[in-house]
């Protein structure tokens, strides 16, 4: 087998050294084993594996092949070629968690830079070295709010991504906490302020919300703080922060979101990278890894993982979270792409996204059967179509356009079967938009 360096004579010599006549002796304690036969194929050459997987890949329609408007929590953006080149360097790809900092300064320095970028982007004081993804980060933020407020009742906005809400509900139910959900809030018209009381630990609000509306969080933050609750602001489109007032500036206590759209591929839902930021005063209740500055024995600046007294490998059942890893390589991709963009590039990218979405909105205005509902949006908005949005998406897919996400796929039985979320990024051309508009006209 091409990956195994040991030859039969090496193995024989090693067995002799170890005093075992047969390799089976080393597995003698395993019940039922050692087994010699499994109903699985034998090993394949590199060429054969490539053929097998390429055949499967070819059965999928990839975003780059067709006009593509699918978002709802994961977004296709153009990622510069150097990002993927750099993250495949052996020293990044094939290293472990930086537990030996003297020979892990590369990883540690980029994590420190990543933390700084995330804190700046979200308008917060500190950020961690990343979470698995936005949705799990959101649930962790809820648990963190419970630890800080010593209350166990979270209030979820109806604009929160339905899958994020489901993850939070799963965690809360099984951790025996309470969650107050809200019905889907298509027009950002819900009254959260009126529902905050002294028993609420946190309010979880997404901006731009699931239906595409940017939310002004200031009055909610104020109400939260009046009642001793925390405001958790969620985002699923990190590029929006290049154009929209940061949640930190609007008074959020924890900001958590999905970082996929900067530097990372769609990859059918993972791996992604959760961004997690908060205020300094809550630092010690924060989950996840943190990288900090220090000096070495010669006084030179260096970086280490720090405040690990919060973490499971030290605190075990008293830890702030069971999380053991971060999403290191995805965080690196995010950080490299952000470095390439820089502030000016990020702002331009965000403006192009918004302008493209506005252009599509204007185009759809002329199609009575596909009406955009949002007054405000960033790069995604909700359209009310004639008939069933899921069927429409299927029909358009067969006609070579991936038109968007039917709301009913994420929120079944909510009576929203005629709503379609349509995302526009810098990848969408005028021709893409014209094709979508023409198809919508034709089909509907």
């Amino acid at each position, binding site marked *: *087998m091409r990956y195994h*360096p*040991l030859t039969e004579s090496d193995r024989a010599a090693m067995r002799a050294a*170890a005093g075992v006549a047969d390799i089976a002796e*080393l597995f003698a*304690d*395993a*019940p039922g084993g050692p087994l010699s036969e499994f109903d699985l194929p034998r*090993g*394949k050459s590199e060429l054969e*594996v490539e053929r097998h*997987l390429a055949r*499967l*890949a070819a059965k999928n329609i990839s*975003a780059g092949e067709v006009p593509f408007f699918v978002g*709802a*929590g*994961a977004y296709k953006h153009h990622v510069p070629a150097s990002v993927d080149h*750099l993250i495949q360097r052996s*020293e990044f*790809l*094939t290293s*472990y*968690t930086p537990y030996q900092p003297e*020979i892990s300064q590369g990883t540690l320095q980029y994590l420190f830079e990543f933390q700084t970028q995330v804190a700046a982007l979200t308008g917060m004081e500190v950020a961690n070295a990343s979470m698995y993804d936005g*949705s799990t980060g959101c649930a962790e933020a809820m*648990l963190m709010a419970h630890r800080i407020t010593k209350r166990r009742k979270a209030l979820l906005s109806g604009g929160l991504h339905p899958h994020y809400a*489901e*993850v939070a509900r*799963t965690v809360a139910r099984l*951790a025996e906490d309470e969650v107050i959900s809200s019905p889907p809030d298509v027009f950002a018209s819900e009254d959260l302020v009126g529902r905050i009381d002294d028993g609420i630990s946190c309010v979880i609000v997404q901006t731009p919300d699931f239906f595409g509306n940017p939310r002004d969080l200031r009055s909610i933050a104020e109400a939260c703080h009046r009642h001793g609750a925390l405001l958790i602001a969620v985002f699923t489109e990190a590029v929006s922060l290049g154009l*929209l007032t940061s949640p930190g500036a609007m008074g959020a206590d924890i900001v958590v979101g999905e970082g996929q759209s900067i530097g990372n591929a*769609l990859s*059918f*839902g993972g791996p992604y990278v959760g961004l997690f930021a908060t205020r300094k005063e809550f630092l010690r209740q924060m989950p996840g*890894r943190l990288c*900090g*500055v*220090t000096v*070495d*024995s010669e006084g030179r600046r260096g970086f280490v993982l*720090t405040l*690990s*007294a919060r973490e*499971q490998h030290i605190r075990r*059942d008293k*830890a702030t979270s*069971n*999380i053991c*890893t971060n999403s*290191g390589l995805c965080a690196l991709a995010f950080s490299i792409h952000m*470095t*390439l963009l*820089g502030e*000016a590039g990020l702002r*331009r990218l965000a*403006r192009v996204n918004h302008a493209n979405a506005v252009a599509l*909105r204007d185009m759809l205005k002329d199609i009575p059967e596909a009406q955009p509902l*949002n007054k405000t949006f960033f790069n995604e908005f909700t359209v009310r179509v004639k008939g069933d949005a899921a069927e429409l998406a299927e029909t358009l897919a067969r006609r070579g356009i991936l038109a968007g996400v039917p709301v009913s796929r*994420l929120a079944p039985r909510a009576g929203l079967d005629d709503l379609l979320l349509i995302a526009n990024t810098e990848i969408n051309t005028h021709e893409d938009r014209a094709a979508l508009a023409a198809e919508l006209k034709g089909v509907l």
Partner: protein
Amino acid sequence: MLDHTKAAMAETRATFTGDHALEMEEPLLFEIGQAEKSGVDIEEPEAFQSCLGGLERSDPIGLPGLSEPETLRHYVRLSRKNYSIDAGLYPLGSCTMKHNPRLNEKMARLPGFADIHPLQPQSTVQGALEVMEQLSHWLLTLTNMEAVALSPKAGAHGEICGLMAIKSAIAARGESATRKIVLVPQSAHGTNPASAALLGFEVRAVSAGVDGIVHAEDVASVLGPDIAAIMLTNPNTAGLFERDIAKIAELVREAGGYFYCDGANFNAIAGVARPGDFGVDAMHINLHKTFSTPHGGGGPGAGPVVLSARLAPFAPAPALVKTADGLRLKEDIEGTTSLGRITAFHGQMGMFVRALAYMLSHGADGLAQASQDAVLAANYVRVKLRDMMTAPYGDRNCMHEVLFDDAWLAGSGVTTLDFAKAMIDEGYHPMTIYFPLVAHGAMLIEPTESESKASLDKFVATLRRLGELALSGDAELFHGAPRYAPRRRLDETLAARKPVLRWSRDVA
């Protein structure tokens, strides 16, 4: 003082730049970038009309940019300050630093996998769902289990998912109020008690015998109607197979509890023994360990969980089902006993492709060979070091990793940490140290199947030389190590006492 030490302590020549040939210092991005600089050409939109509802961001964000050549240089220089499997032996016990085949990277980047959206119509992603189906088939066949949940994002996430299934099953039996205790041995990974505590379970320690394994009679003595589950790692973190495991599983089941197996060390037995044959109810499989998806400097991982028949009904959403129209993800759990959704989408697809490529490349025969070679390599290292170093559980065969303690260093003035840091100067990443907690000054060595015999021979020879030096009373060399790494020993206390977690102008 030995010549070796003197040479090591001799001053290195100062340079004007502070750099030394290929080893170069690299400033922070924030010290070299500029807010107006960009390495991406993006045109301003021709017409800009704001539909943001007055929420435009006006403050400076604080994100410096670099041009493309500067970006390449920054990250290439950073990369060179990292140790990696590709560069050398990485014997981190319990972490499984084996070879990461580049074919797997290439496959995961096929546009048909990397450039598909989790919410595009399911009819347009049948190939991706087939990858999930084939991966599930391999995992279930290798483990002899009933069902698999692919969505957990990492080992610890899989662990909590498995415990959620257990908690749901207990609730379905109406025993939530009484079954509150989870048994966890002292040698367990910290994630085990942390996961259990997060779900409101009370964690109770169960002790191992002097031979390093948990004994059935010790478990039997604490079992009762209050026990929800036992969490055992097998092979355990001392590198030993839990010999009583089938008996323990049977006892726990008879007492109405569940057996969670931490599958972090499945790489020792994949293709050789099946966890379903020793009574496991739930086990996560770290695809980044056993099936070699890259560790990436600390993630992303992937932690699918296999479940027994009695836990399968509680598996998280989405479930992969076969329909007349092909494969479908069943995302709506209304009316089912599923524990719910644990992440936004369907799991780490990029890792599924890599793991499947690894499985197809190996085949059942190659996977068995990998496990056997890993176990043989660990035993080879063990016998080559056993006369010098001390093992907490005596001289006995191990599985894929070998555990030593620091008794052999007593009186030398050299600690496990010192010894590890001296290994760095010799070109090695140290083994796992101070874990598991049950061994004093633990040194846990996992060579993996990816090392040649020559590489193992050089490794043990180096450890022997270092060991002899430590025992000769020359502790000075160890206290000052590492000397040749990009940094000398770093002050972790300072970092924790005055946490500086982001750049500001004070971070000079």
